[in-house]
């Protein structure tokens, strides 16, 4: 069995240490590779900080056009072979199909970075864009394409970056692949810019509790993905030691869908069936894509009481198609990690909803979770689960819907839904749209799809990281 080594990358060098773990396929027992992850110590972390600090002033001299070109060319080598996708899929349990789609989508977006860059700063008539300060980012464990999303924008913002993966370490692998491709392009196109090989540092620092005392540095940028609770804790930890320039949080991925009766009423029987089928498929795919662990995956669907029964029945019937299979299977929704299976089972037992969990076992007898449809009464509230769990609630009226959603946000301690999909008549959508508290509102579209050209959670990372000097000239 092949072993893929996931090393630290510090000061332009890949670093293996004496402290390592061998993940024998983190998620399941498929034939494939082992991941050998090397952890770094405090002084490796200090070396990464030192490198990021030193490289930062040099970035001022590099033009944005050149960085965009280098990034664009890097995409030719980034995840350019099938093996990498297969390995990542096996390591994380994310479906191979999804990874190809998500990573390729992100690659295309990075290739078109000049366009994105121009659009981001189009309101700035005349400016001099220079490097801000270094960035420290902790990647999420549920979206492997995020490494590229973060690194590319940090580079374009001329901010050196230190990446620390989630505990799953897949983020280190995707970051490592970026560094390999980036270095190759620099060697090919512009070896004089070899210092750019130090713009990214990857640290596999194990102990998250000790991390902040080492990496909390005044005037640095911090990117963190996690729940509001996690974010609050991280901010408090950093503030003990330093005052950051920016703290950019991508929080709780709580998203919903709304199916109003207006979407289905006034249709003849045949069209109603077609429409019902289409809506339920869209809701189900948004709830189950990449094991339902996407931040934009629908966690709950609100259904108007007049169509609740038929929609619920349809969701239940169609959900059988969304199965947890070998991640390489073209129809797999992916494999939920054993820890998350345990958590979901326990949480649903506490909710007294355990019987709705569609749980099975794989060929080796390990528990797996298929798409599960779980009805809730109006006095029960949904929250985000790291699996293909879709809660279904009924509402009586527009005001009832808004009231339930407000209460649900409050209970989950979030300010807005991340993404809300509305399936209704256009007039209902127009009425309700201004009243919904959500970052992204979609009409007749699944909630999970992310368009990287738009703000995510109300933020444009490139803009957040970039420092501008506005130039005013005489007319």
């Amino acid at each position, binding site marked *: 069995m092949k072993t893929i080594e996931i090393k630290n990358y510090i000061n332009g060098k890949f670093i293996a240490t004496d402290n390592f773990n061998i993940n024998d396929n983190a998620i399941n027992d498929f034939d494939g590779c082992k991941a050998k992850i090397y952890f770094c110590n405090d*002084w490796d972390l200090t070396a990464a900080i030192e490198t990021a600090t030193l490289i*930062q002033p040099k970035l001022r001299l590099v033009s944005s056009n050149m960085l965009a070109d280098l990034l664009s060319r890097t995409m030719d080598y980034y995840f350019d072979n099938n093996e990498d996708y297969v390995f990542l899929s096996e390591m994380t349990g994310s479906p191979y199909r999804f990874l190809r789609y998500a990573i390729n989508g992100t690659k295309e977006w990075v290739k078109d970075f000049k366009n994105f860059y121009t659009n981001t700063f189009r309101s700035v008539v005349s400016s001099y864009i220079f490097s801000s300060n270094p960035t420290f980012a902790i990647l999420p464990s549920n979206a492997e394409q995020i490494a590229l999303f973060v690194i590319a924008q940090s580079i374009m913002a001329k901010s050196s970056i230190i990446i620390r993966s989630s505990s799953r370490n897949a983020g280190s692998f995707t970051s490592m692949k970026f560094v390999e491709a980036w270095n190759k392009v620099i060697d090919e196109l512009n070896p004089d810019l070899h210092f750019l090989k130090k713009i990214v540092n990857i640290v596999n620092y194990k102990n998250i509790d000790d991390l902040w005392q080492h990496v909390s540095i005044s005037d640095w940028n911090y990117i963190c993905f996690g729940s509001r609770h996690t974010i609050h804790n991280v901010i408090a930890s950093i503030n003990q030691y330093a005052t950051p320039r920016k703290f950019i949080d991508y929080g709780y991925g709580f998203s919903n869908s709304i199916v109003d009766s207006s979407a289905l009423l006034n249709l003849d029987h045949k069209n109603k069936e077609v429409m019902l089928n289409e809506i339920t498929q869209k809701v189900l795919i948004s709830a189950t894509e990449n094991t339902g662990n996407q931040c934009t995956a629908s966690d709950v669907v609100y259904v108007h009481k007049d169509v609740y029964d038929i929609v619920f029945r349809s969701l239940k019937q169609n959900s059988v198609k969304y199965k947890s299979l070998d991640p390489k299977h073209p129809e797999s929704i992916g494999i939920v990690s054993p820890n998350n299976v345990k958590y979901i089972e326990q949480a649903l037992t506490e909710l007294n909803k355990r019987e709705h969990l569609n749980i099975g076992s794989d060929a080796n007898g390990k528990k797996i979770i298929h798409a599960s449809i779980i009805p809730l009464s109006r006095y029960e509230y949904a929250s985000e689960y790291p699996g293909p769990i879709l809660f279904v609630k009924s509402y009586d009226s527009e005001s009832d819907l808004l009231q339930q959603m407000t209460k649900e946000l409050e209970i989950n301690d979030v300010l807005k839904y991340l993404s809300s999909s509305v399936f209704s008549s256009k007039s209902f959508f127009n009425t309700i749209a201004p009243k919904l508290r959500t970052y992204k509102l979609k009409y007749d579209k699944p909630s999970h799809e992310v368009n990287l050209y738009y703000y995510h959670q109300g933020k444009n990372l490139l803009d957040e990281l970039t420092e501008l000097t506005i130039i005013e000239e005489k007319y």
Partner: protein
Amino acid sequence: MEMEIDQSRDIVYHSYDIPSYFDIKWDTMPKDKRDALVLIQAKATALFAKRFVPFYKIHYKHISEDDIMNISSLGEFAFKLPVTTKRHLSENDAFDFLPDFVQIEEMINKGTGGTTGKPVTIYYSKSDWNAMAQHIARSIKFDFQNNLHELKGLNVVGMYHGDHVTNDIYRDGLKLLGIHVSGRVSTKKDAKSNYDFLQHQKPNGILAPPSDPSDSQTKGITLDEFLKSDAKNSSEFAYRFNNEINPKFKLIFWSSMPLPEAMLNYMQNHLKIPYIQGQYGSTECCPTGATCKYHPREFHIGYGPTLITVIHPTEKRLITENERGHILVTKTGGTYDGKNIVPTGTYIINLRTGDSAVLKNINGEQCQCGRNTPILTDLKRIEYVEVKADAGCQVD
């Protein structure tokens, strides 16, 4: 070689061709010859102590002068003479360890902390101090034999607390090599203000203790804190310790606490500091061992003003190669007017420091650095830890 010690107070070694403590011969001469010289020093010291030092007059009351004169090896020296303990030092007056005729106004007084318990006071006479300074300078001189000119005019900042012995002994030692050592000026304890001080001072090197993992020692702003402040300093024009961008920063001296391997690796391989040297020592006897390029975390014993012997924990013998044992230290000399003489400050003979170590290179094989002295490795504190902690004294 016969030893004659006259009845006067001026016992000198120079008639026995004992090299200056600044002479690197100490580190390269054949083992037998060095042991013989050291034995002369040790016996003269013990004899002088029996005659003139109040504590040792009593401590050695069952030992005759002939017994001392008849000691024929360093092993016998370690076992025939009763050990001195930290408790002896802390429970008796400091004057009891000084020769009768001492001129106290000429002494340099260095004490262990004593903030929470009984302090210990160590007096260094000028001649003792000069010997220590020569000794510490020699350990650095050895590494720069053909390039001593590189050290001239360098500026090192000592970051130990104001009156800590380490700052002072380095100041006088490095002066012999043309290096200027200035002590830490700030009275603030936070690393940032001290780092700002360094930014202003722009030294060629620093002297600082690595941090204490138990966080119980406060010897000064630690090396860890400085290096981490340096790494985090994002100012474009900051004075940095990274030799690749600031070739003027050349030296790091460390002492007092063990240097973790990861930290050494960071200094050597990431910052590329050209010269990193550690000293093993104690407040009682100052420097007694120095690291070399090939043993960056272990210490070549440095002979001359101090004698180190390592005894077996249970048997009455010195340890053999790669054995662990308890460390005994003896102050064996001062230097005055170009002559090497017995100590004239606080007398320390066969003091159990409480440290244990494994000894390597015991038979005088030549290290790649050129020294043929034994190497103290894997140092641990096994005794007196409680006493040291209770007394709040400097644990060196």
